[in-house]
């Protein structure tokens, strides 16, 4: 019930009077955290965190996976309760028992995953939990329109959510929060799901909310966003807030260092920064070992070895008969990385499923080396030396309820069995070795896969796929989604070294800058067709971007 002490003030309506002035430090903070600690059993996710957020400011929360960012948000939103420490909201003690109490106290949260029900209309979604008895949909629909318009957003209250695009859903999430006129808005990696062209307008909305006197905490991995939007940045590392810097005086490299506690290779910083000039620099000098190396290792002999992957006019229609892939033709050379660029939902998922043997193409064929795999089962594909890093590591990449060791050895279980019995000892030893080599943190062989953070889960999947022997081809779909800069570097490091050993890589990603940094060539997929293919250089960046958005070059 503590939540209810703090409901009255609506910061968004006080715009005119007070909060235009952004001199927050002299005023009482909206949210004040002191000595916040949270433990889960033996694991301390957050220790002694102290943080202040003021009205009218955007505070960015940076940190690697597992650093405690989501935990911190969930504490503020009442999903967890802190083990120790004190929270104050608008000057009053604040200890929400559940999200409902947090909402009542004026704290809104946009989650990493969508929190709107796909089968319902916008108006029903926004009414959810806000209304009792008989619904007044029409009245509320007008309220939604009006509220959204205040922030320059357009929403059709009568649309069903599942018909909306990802960007529209994300905006709906924001509007959903704004309906309650929150004094503090938590945004947990909201841009992770957005296509590049939507991110800008999304950040504009954040700015407008802050200018209206709201306080925002934005969790993100993307340093470019931090540079664009943050007033201050708090950096979390291993459960501690290691630094809080005002952006006016911020140095990006210093921030990255504070975040991961060490220095990064230049190329990856550039990738994280999304800043073209850095990427260019990385490409031309200082880093022959990374971006350059993978592809430009001379294909030893002049007599051309066969392509590791040949896709020949592959077409795929889904159950409803809609064409998802339209005569895709690409080839991957040994030791090379071919990037497939495209905004999500243009057929990448379907391509990934076909190459994993989980769907059958409607027409066309594909080959690994000179073996046709068009109708091969997943087991046959694995046996042919194809490693698959699937888009959805939870559903397809791993059995989340099993241990790390079991997941690591799943693919070549035969190697760890004798007389039909599993040799646990050998399995554990192999797992220990892989965990060390692939820098999987916070895990032993017996740790449940599900309890790892996203980046570490991805490392486990990668470790398993890359240790296939022989590894002929690696198909990696969105391998860095949701990963932080440090993990992105590790993931690409491993992919490159697989390339160095002669494997070909098909890299499907919607992060254009990453693709340019690591690929040799980039093919662009748009509405199920390959609309262009060109060398992966900064010079081609604009052309590729245009192709991705459907403008023929």
């Amino acid at each position, binding site marked *: 019930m503590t939540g209810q002490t703090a409901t009255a003030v609506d910061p968004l309506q006080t715009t005119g009077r007070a909060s235009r002035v952004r001199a927050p430090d002299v005023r009482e903070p909206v949210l004040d955290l002191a000595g916040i600690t949270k433990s889960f059993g033996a694991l301390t996710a957050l220790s002694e965190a102290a943080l202040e957020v003021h009205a009218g400011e955007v505070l960015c929360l940076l940190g690697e996976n597992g650093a405690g960012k989501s935990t911190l948000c*969930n504490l503020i939103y009442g999903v967890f309760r802190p083990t120790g420490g004190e929270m104050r909201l608008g000057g009053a003690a604040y200890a929400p028992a559940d999200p409902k109490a947090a909402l009542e106290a004026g704290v809104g949260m946009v989650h990493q995953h969508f*929190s709107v029900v796909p089968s*319902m209309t916008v108006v029903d979604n926004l009414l959810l*939990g*806000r209304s009792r008895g008989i619904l007044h949909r029409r009245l509320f629909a007008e309220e939604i329109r009006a509220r959204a318009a205040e922030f320059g957003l357009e929403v059709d209250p009568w649309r069903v959510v599942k018909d909306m695009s990802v960007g529209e859903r994300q905006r709906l999430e924001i509007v959903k929060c704004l309906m309650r006129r929150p004094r503090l808005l938590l945004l947990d990696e909201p841009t992770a799901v957005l296509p590049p062209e939507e991110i800008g307008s999304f950040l504009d909305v954040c700015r407008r909310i802050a200018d209206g006197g709201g306080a925002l905490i934005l969790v993100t991995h993307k340093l470019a966003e931090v540079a664009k939007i943050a007033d201050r940045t708090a950096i979390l590392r291993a459960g501690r807030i290691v630094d809080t810097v005002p952006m006016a005086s911020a140095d990006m490299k210093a921030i990255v260092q504070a975040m991961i506690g060490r220095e990064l290779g230049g190329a990856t910083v550039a990738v994280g920064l999304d800043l073209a000039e850095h990427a260019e620099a990385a490409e031309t000098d200082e880093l022959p070992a990374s971006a350059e190396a993978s592809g430009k290792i001379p294909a030893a002999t002049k007599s051309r070895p066969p392509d590791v992957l040949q896709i020949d006019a592959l077409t795929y229609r889904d159950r409803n008969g809609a064409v998802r892939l339209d005569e895709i033709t690409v080839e991957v050379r040994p030791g090379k990385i071919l990037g497939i660029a495209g905004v999500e939902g243009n057929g990448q998922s379907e391509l990934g499923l076909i190459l994993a043997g989980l769907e059958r193409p409607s027409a066309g064929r594909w080959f690994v080396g000179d073996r046709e795999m068009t109708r091969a089962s997943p087991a046959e594909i694995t046996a042919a030396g194809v490693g698959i890093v699937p888009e959805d590591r939870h559903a397809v990449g791993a059995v989340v309820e099993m241990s790390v060791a079991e997941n690591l050895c799943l693919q070549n279980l035969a190697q760890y069995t004798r007389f039909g019995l599993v040799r646990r000892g050998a399995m554990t030893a192999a797992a220990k070795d892989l965990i060390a080599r692939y820098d999987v943190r916070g895990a032993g062989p017996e740790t449940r896969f599900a309890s790892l953070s996203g980046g570490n889960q991805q490392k486990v999947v990668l470790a398993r796929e890359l240790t296939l022997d022989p590894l002929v081809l690696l198909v990696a779909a969105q391998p860095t989604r949701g990963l932080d800069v440090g993990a992105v570097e590790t993931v690409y490091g491993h992919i490159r070294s697989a390339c160095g050993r002669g494997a070909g890589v098909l890299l499907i990603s919607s992060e254009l800058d990453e693709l340019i940094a690591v690929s040799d060539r980039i093919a662009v997929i748009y509405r199920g067709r390959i609309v262009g293919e060109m060398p992966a250089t900064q010079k081609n960046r604009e052309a590729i971007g245009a192709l991705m958005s459907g403008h023929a070059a």
Partner: protein
Amino acid sequence: MNLETLAVYIASTLHFALPLMLAASGELVSEAAGVLNLSLEGMMLFAAFFSVWGTSVTGDPWIGLLWGIASGIVFAILQAVLSVRLRANQLVVGIGLNILALGATTFLNREIFGALSRQLVPGFGHLHIPGLSTLPLLGPSLFQQDLVVYVGLALIVAIWFVLRFTAYGVACRAVGDDPRSADWAGISVTRVRSIAILVTGAMAGVAGTLISVGDIRTFTEGMTNGAGYLAIAAIIFGGWRLWPTVGACLLFGGAMALQFQFSAATSPVPTAALLMLPYVLALLSVAGLVGRQVPPAALTIPFFGSR
């Protein structure tokens, strides 16, 4: 088939369909909220017995109806505690409760009435709607039913209204489709689901009472005879929408009524084969041969909370 037999056929279709309609529309509330009550059969059987007992004790079938509803709710509480609060597997809980219901009602029936008793209890009175009940053809079949029939129909309309136009209805759908989002929106998944199961129990109570007190005015062991499962099949048939579900119940009821129609006249098909018909229809619908429908995404999945 002449008009007179058609009128009889319509009346008996409605007669067989109504308990299914009540049970199915009640169960639909639970399923919309993501809980599958296989124990629907047991709830109905429980209510069938307790309504007879209540009527026999008090001499008033309306008080018997209240007993029936109450026993359905008590049974539903068991289901709710086990499957929602304790998050046990819904199918296992349902099967277990059905076996319990069969055993408990058989035992109580033999203790209270004796195994061979065919003691009749007072039934519900008829309602004659002036003007309508004397209509040719439809009059006797639709407008000379037991009063309790109209109560039942009113309840179905009430359920439609709640699901469509109230905050609780929206909460039900949210909890059944995406419980995590509902939880984040401040909805108590446990509470919404528990209430839905109680509604199912109450509706199953009315349905069970109709089968015993409202029909043959006595209790026989295992007398629901799969009606609960048929109601669940009707929901699948109806694609988790209320009116199509009610339509499916009428279809099943029509199939049941057919066997009496044919046995009365000279039947071209063995009547025992006709007994099978509603179940065959149900099987076809469950197999998705009558158009595949999308169930609520979280149906039968317990919610473990977002924490």
